[in-house]
């Protein structure tokens, strides 16, 4: 029973990682950039949700939508200002810029409101414990999991069924050929940043509810772990990010459950090292072969 309990916790945690990892993987897929500012967009989302609830007095869903909208705009703005001018620069230059943007967001946030943590109101979602066959599941976990699942299904729908989604896939495969179809590559990249950042914003709100404590540097560790999740699933592959996130969450919970909770952060990065050594393309990645 203990095992199943940890599994349930792990899936809730993992769905947060998955939501953040999706943004990493989508952006990487389209511009081949690890957007290290992504964890900070997640942090901003968490704060937007917090202020929406405490200052505007709205409920969970309006707060979630507001956080997603603000993060979408933030993500597009970062891309336009920081990354777009470097479209033809070396990858290392863009990577360093991403780290710079990350630090900028963190410390502007500290400058604006101070570094002290904030406690998420616990009344946002109904708190009840359901007991199913001896496993205790909180209604919050179910809400979190449900919200994440709905967002992921929505993302799959956008990517596979809508015009902008098809444009995103086309640009990520071959940007020049996509231009020949009449696809506006810049707008498509903007849309990708917007969607990925909105998911991070949602993850921020969910994270706040789950862990109750938020602060301006909260994005660093979940951001890095979501990056591990994206690499674990295969960077650039959307289902990979989902599975990688869930898997990482479950592994962390099991490690904690076995009594090694001090090791759980370490385990995530050991996974990163192992994946990079033994299967650098990730679980879902395959060696790309081209037909001539």
């Amino acid at each position, binding site marked *: 029973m203990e095992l199943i309990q940890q599994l349930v916790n792990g899936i809730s945690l993992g769905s947060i990682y998955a939501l953040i990892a999706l943004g990493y993987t989508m952006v990487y897929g389209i511009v081949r950039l690890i957007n290290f500012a992504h964890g900070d967009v997640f942090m901003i989302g968490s704060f937007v949700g917090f202020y929406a609830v405490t200052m505007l007095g709205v409920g969970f869903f309006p707060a979630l939508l507001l956080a997603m909208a603000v993060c979408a705009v933030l993500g597009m703005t970062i891309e336009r200002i920081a990354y777009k001018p470097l479209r033809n620069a070396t990858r290392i230059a863009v990577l360093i810029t991403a780290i710079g943007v990350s630090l900028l967001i963190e410390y502007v946030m500290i400058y604006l409101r101070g570094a002290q943590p904030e406690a998420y109101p616990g009344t946002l979602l109904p708190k009840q414990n359901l007991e199913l066959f001896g496993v205790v599941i909180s209604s919050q976990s179910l809400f979190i999991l449900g919200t994440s699942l709905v967002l992921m299904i929505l993302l799959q729908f956008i990517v596979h069924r809508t015009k902008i989604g*098809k444009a995103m*896939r086309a640009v990520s495969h071959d940007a020049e*050929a996509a231009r020949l*179809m009449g696809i506006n590559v810049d707008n498509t990249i903007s849309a990708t940043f917007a969607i990925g950042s909105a998911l991070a914003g949602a993850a921020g709100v969910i994270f706040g509810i789950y862990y109750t404590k938020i602060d301006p540097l909260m994005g660093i560790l979940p951001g890095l772990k979501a990056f591990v999740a994206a690499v674990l699933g295969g960077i650039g592959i959307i289902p990979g990010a989902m599975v990688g996130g869930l898997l990482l969450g479950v592994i962390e919970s099991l490690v904690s459950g076995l009594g090694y909770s001090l090791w759980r952060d370490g385990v995530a990065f050991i996974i990163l090292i192992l994946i990079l050594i033994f299967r650098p393309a990730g679980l879902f990645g395959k060696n790309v072969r*081209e037909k001539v």
Partner: protein
Amino acid sequence: MLKVEQIDVFYGNIHALKGVSLEVNSGEIVTLIGANGAGKTTLLKTISGLLKPKHGDIVYEGASIAGKAAQTIVKQGISHVPEGRRVFANMTVEENLELGAFLRKDKEGIQQDFAKVFELFPRLEERRKQLAGTLSGGEQQMLAIGRALMARPKLLLLDEPSMGLAPLLVKTIFRIIEEINQSGTTILLVEQNAHMALSIADRAYVIESGRVVLSGTASELQASEQVKQAYLGGH
């Protein structure tokens, strides 16, 4: 229909096209022949807006399109089938064709063009739900052409459609190019297979290291000693 006037194009420091001019009249098949690296692909990319000319002008249906965004040029009726086909391998045949019609909003017209493309290439209809990356080279070429036709172009730019295909397939592709032309689409064809290209073209240009060195009707060029020596195997 299309007039390229004295364009200079650079790839970084490389002067790829040096004062190239050519003209394509409505309804024609014009071919551009030349060796690898002569500048043929560069010229097509400049016409379709992927590259910007440094000097000179490109006039299409009376208005300059030089340096315009690729999507504007597609919208005005120029489709480009790139060298090496460049199909979206991770998407289905159907999705590839849909992307060809990306800028169009007339659902009925798009459906009609799906039917037309499938009539032209029955193989594509059979493989409609298959990923483009699993198609054979010839099928991918058909898909690349079909995808370009989905934009309902007035002018079709074809870059090396015969590259890497078996001789029988090359014949099929060229027959289809003629069919497309007969149904009213003007064609600018870039080829290394000069023999095949000249056999279907009305007029031709020969390009060598970034300059047009010879031009004339296809039959004139077929008869020219210079072309025979350099491009038709010398007999």
